[in-house]
């Protein structure tokens, strides 16, 4: 089976077994990078969003600064600053940090995580701020503590309001990850650029990679549809 695929591929001028393996490696790198940055970003963003809705300015202010900074600058610039900037710090090559930041993967992961966390914080802040006052008053009347209110009332209802906007952020992140290739990571786009320059075939190389991105996007859209159905099942008409 594998042999037939290999021999069939090798008849093709551009999409040989070697090319396909390069795309596969690119897919693995893209998925790793995007998945990890989204998961870490989400975990960081939820507490930040709660702090951001705090009415004391000295608690919400720093978070506002952070989201303002990272939403106010292009991701490419953030990646350049983290990737090249870190290497320019005198003496960093002698510290244990260098083992991490020598590889392009971790600077890229850091930049992507900080960026997506900033956007996700603002998405959740909006959802939390839109919690109907009555729900909170009712929870207070039941004698729920701040933490219990947060866990039972505020966060679940905020998650329902945030899920559509967040699914957009996830798809944007997948597409934004294409810039990882500028710092020598061979992600999907990096693989396409290598294949393009090897065969001087821009159309074939980039159309193939566009199709892979589209397939990934369809998977994400499908997963979020399921999640929305789950979270918003109480809104479906009865008897359906």
């Amino acid at each position, binding site marked *: 089976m594998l042999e037939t695929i290999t021999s069939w591929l090798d008849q093709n001028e551009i999409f040989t077994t070697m090319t396909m393996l390069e795309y596969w490696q690119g897919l693995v790198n893209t998925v790793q990078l995007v998945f990890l940055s989204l998961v870490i970003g989400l975990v960081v963003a939820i507490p930040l969003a709660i702090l951001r809705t705090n009415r004391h300015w000295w608690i919400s202010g720093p978070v506002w600064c952070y989201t303002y900074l990272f939403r106010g600058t292009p991701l490419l610039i953030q990646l350049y600053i983290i990737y*090249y900037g870190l*290497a*320019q710090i005198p003496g960093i*090559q002698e510290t244990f940090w*260098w083992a991490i930041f*020598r590889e*392009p993967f971790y600077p890229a992961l850091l930049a992507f995580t900080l960026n997506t966390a900033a956007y996700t914080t603002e998405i959740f802040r909006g959802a939390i701020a839109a919690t109907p006052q009555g729900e909170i008053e009712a929870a207070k009347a039941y004698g729920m503590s701040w933490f219990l209110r947060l866990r039972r009332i505020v966060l679940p209802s905020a998650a329902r309001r945030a899920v559509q906007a967040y699914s957009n952020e996830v798809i944007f992140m997948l597409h934004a990850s294409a810039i990882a290739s*500028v710092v*020598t990571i061979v992600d999907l786009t*990096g693989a396409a*650029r*290598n294949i*393009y*320059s*090897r065969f*001087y075939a821009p159309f074939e190389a980039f159309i193939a990679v566009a199709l892979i991105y589209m397939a990934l996007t369809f998977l994400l859209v499908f997963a979020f549809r399921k999640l929305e159905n789950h979270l918003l099942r109480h809104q479906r008409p009865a008897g359906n």
Partner: protein
Amino acid sequence: MKKLIVAAGCALAMMAGTLQAKEWDTIRIAFDVPYEPFEYRDEDGNLTGFEVELAEAMCDELKADCEFVIQAWDGMIPGLLARKFDAIMSSMSITEERAERVLFSEPYYNTPGGWFGREGFAVDVTDKSAMEGKTVGVQRGTTMDTYVTEELGGTVTIKRYTTADDMVLDLEGQRLDVVFVDYPVGEQTILTKEGFKEVGEPVKLGQGVGVAMRKRDQGLADMVNGALRKLKNDGTYDAIMQKYFEYDIKM
């Protein structure tokens, strides 16, 4: 009347004939400046450089009157085909794609790829086992990229960059152990900085650079090839080369 038409036809044919066997007493040659040290303007604004001097020597050899034209790189081949000039001597590498549209002379120079690293790098770049596990930077899609991929593919980690500047930054930042780059580029961007050195013999790659002419001007190409061959043999070429380069680019 009929005779007149025949006579006119003959006259036209003769004119066309003389046009075909054109005497090349003036040749217009195009350069894209500045591209140091191949073609640039000196402090007085005069056009000079390795290729300019070589073109002058070639014209002396051909006893032709040469006119130098400045043309931006994007419009080089279109300008040639539109007869704005007759030849391009502006570091145009011979490739199959270009050879479909223009006629190349025999190559007249080829810059090698150079190995550059930080002071203290003491590994022989030709020794595969010593290079094991090292990280090598190249510019994506260059002949240097192809060379390293083919020669050291499984042995070293290859990082591909879009621009030479990014690559040099990573060499400075110690993400790369060594880079393999077009020698003049390395000489100007790496060797001019403190703490870097050349770490191996330059390697000649590719088909080299040739004079590009229109496909129909085979006669001119023959003359150019003859003149270049003479200059390469009588020492004129070497004298010009040594003015601009410390290494061998002759081909």
